[in-house]
């Protein structure tokens, strides 16, 4: 029975085996459904709009590079990619620095009100960013921050802090006391311990929270939509939406723009897949 063989004898556990036909058929089907639409968009970018209209599900014949070339040379693609990168990197850096500082105190200092402060931060996990968007806009407007990178970075940092602290604190608490004592004997202050010992030791966790903050920022849409009306500050998600509503008849061009906008996220994800999954796992272990 195919089903029984899912539990192999324990001797064969450790080595990587070939799966059963059922496993493969299932894995293949799920993977195909996940990836097929994306492939279609990428390949569709190599066709012309008349080709697509005539046969929506066909293959490029002949291959056209023109759409991609056009998007890369004539649209705001590069400007938008740059804006996305600045905002995502700024957000990530600030989240990691502020989150580490706060989590370090919450993990390694004992003081009156510590658990209260921690609860205060975890409460933020229950505050949906979407619900705050209107008052947030009004506040940023009054602070004269509309149409600046800060208008996106500051709220994103604020809303990423709770999860960052929740992931980092147990990691920092787990560093053995002996290391802290040894550092103190060697003359390191508590801040020296943070800088020389705790930070290097918690690098995996720092990478995880950094990656999560970066991806969230790179993909965010609602906040930039409201606070960045200046076209020169638009990020890639705004660019994709604008391009598609501006050139509704140019299906091939939209496909090309959409695939180019996917590319950075896909590349980044392939490089950081372990950290993302690891971070999610960490969140699950809670």
């Amino acid at each position: 029975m195919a089903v029984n063989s899912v539990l192999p004898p324990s001797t064969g556990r450790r080595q990587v085996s070939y799966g059963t036909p059922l496993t493969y058929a299932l894995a293949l089907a799920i993977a195909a459904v996940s990836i097929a639409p994306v492939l279609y968009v990428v390949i569709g970018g190599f066709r012309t709009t008349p080709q697509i209209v005539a046969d929506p599900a066909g293959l490029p014949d002949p291959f056209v590079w023109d759409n991609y070339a056009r998007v890369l040379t004539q649209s705001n693609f590069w400007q938008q990619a740059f804006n996305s990168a600045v905002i995502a990197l700024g957000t990530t850096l600030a989240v990691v620095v502020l989150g580490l500082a706060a989590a370090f105190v919450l993990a390694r200092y004992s003081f009156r009100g510590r658990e209260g402060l921690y609860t205060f931060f975890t409460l933020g996990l229950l505050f949906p960013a979407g619900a705050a968007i209107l008052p947030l806009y009004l506040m940023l407007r009054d602070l004269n921050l509309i149409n600046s990178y800060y208008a996106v970075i500051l709220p994103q940092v604020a809303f990423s802090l709770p999860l960052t602290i929740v992931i980092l604190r147990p990691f920092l608490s787990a560093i053995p006391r002996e290391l802290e004592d040894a550092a103190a004997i060697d003359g390191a202050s508590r801040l020296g311990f943070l800088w020389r010992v705790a930070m290097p030791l918690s690098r995996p966790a720092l990478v995880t929270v950094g990656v999560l903050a970066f991806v969230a920022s790179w993909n965010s849409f609602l906040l930039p939509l409201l606070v960045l009306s200046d076209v020169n500050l638009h990020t890639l998600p705004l660019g994709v939406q604008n391009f598609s509503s501006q050139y509704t008849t140019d299906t091939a061009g939209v496909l090309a723009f959409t695939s180019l906008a996917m590319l950075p996220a896909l590349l980044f994800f392939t490089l950081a897949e372990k950290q993302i999954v690891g971070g999610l796992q960490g969140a699950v272990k809670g």
Partner: protein
Amino acid sequence: MTSANQIRMPAGGASASPAGPHRAGRDSARRADNRRKWYEIIGLTTPAVLIYVMFVLVPMGFAVYYSLFRWRGVGPPTEFVGLRNYTLAFQDPIFLDALRNNAIIVFGSLLIQGPIALGVALLLNRRFRGRAVFRLLVFVPYVLAEVTVGIMWKLLLTGDGTVDALLRSLGMGGLVQAWLADLDVVIWTLLAVLTWKYVGFAIILLLAGLSNVPDELTEAAAIDGASWWQIQRHVTIPLLGPTIRIWMFLSMIGSLQIFDMIWVTSVPAVRSLGASATMATYMVDNGFFARLWGYGNAVAVILFVISFVAALLFQRFLLRRDIEGAITGRAK
């Protein structure tokens, strides 16, 4: 005595020691260190606290205040209307449609993605060649921006577009619909697209949870003669409890706030009729674009209260469940 030891001490502990000849010097050193400790605590946490209070808590407070006014967003709000914005919202059929759509997305996501993800994760819970590649591919829809995914499906689902052509070539032309324009169909189309985007996330999460289930338990059950299904039903799935509940929580909160995908995929006209509106799109349409700032903020408060209460209830429920079941409690 090391300064490291003192970090562990409660704030008031240092002064509790009895006085002695050379206590005085040590006490003042301790007091100095204690003061330095507090400087560090304040210095390290203040930036995070400030930015968190300013951009997470304060805006929600303002939302409550603005929601009590009729206000076009210019100058300070003056026309106090009490709770009228709230009663107006619950009398607007479009808002009620938005509530219904959010409910469809919340429960639709849980009921469709949950069983699929659980089944796939259980069947794929073993090392096989190419598993890493599989994980990578299944995760692709989750990593892409909702906006990108939305535009992509909008193109695929246009009238006589790719999906329609594909259905016809498979002899299922009868299924062809006005996917995004038919007022009765659009919300289900959007639910299907959301399922496509987020089921991979559930699968990956559950596979990660499964890797924490010790082999010894399932092997012991197998030796005792349990069938594959009995093992899943009585050993694996109970141990997966915490993972499943966290996934449900994340899915629920995400569904209540859903905006990006709905905004770009469905046509504004369809949205304004309520067929594809959600609380978040309704809020932005009315508050930001129609400049009914007081009203929009009232909707924001409603969205917030619903999410917050749902989250609290779920956490209560989740927490209690995890404490009751000794095994699941320990597995956490």
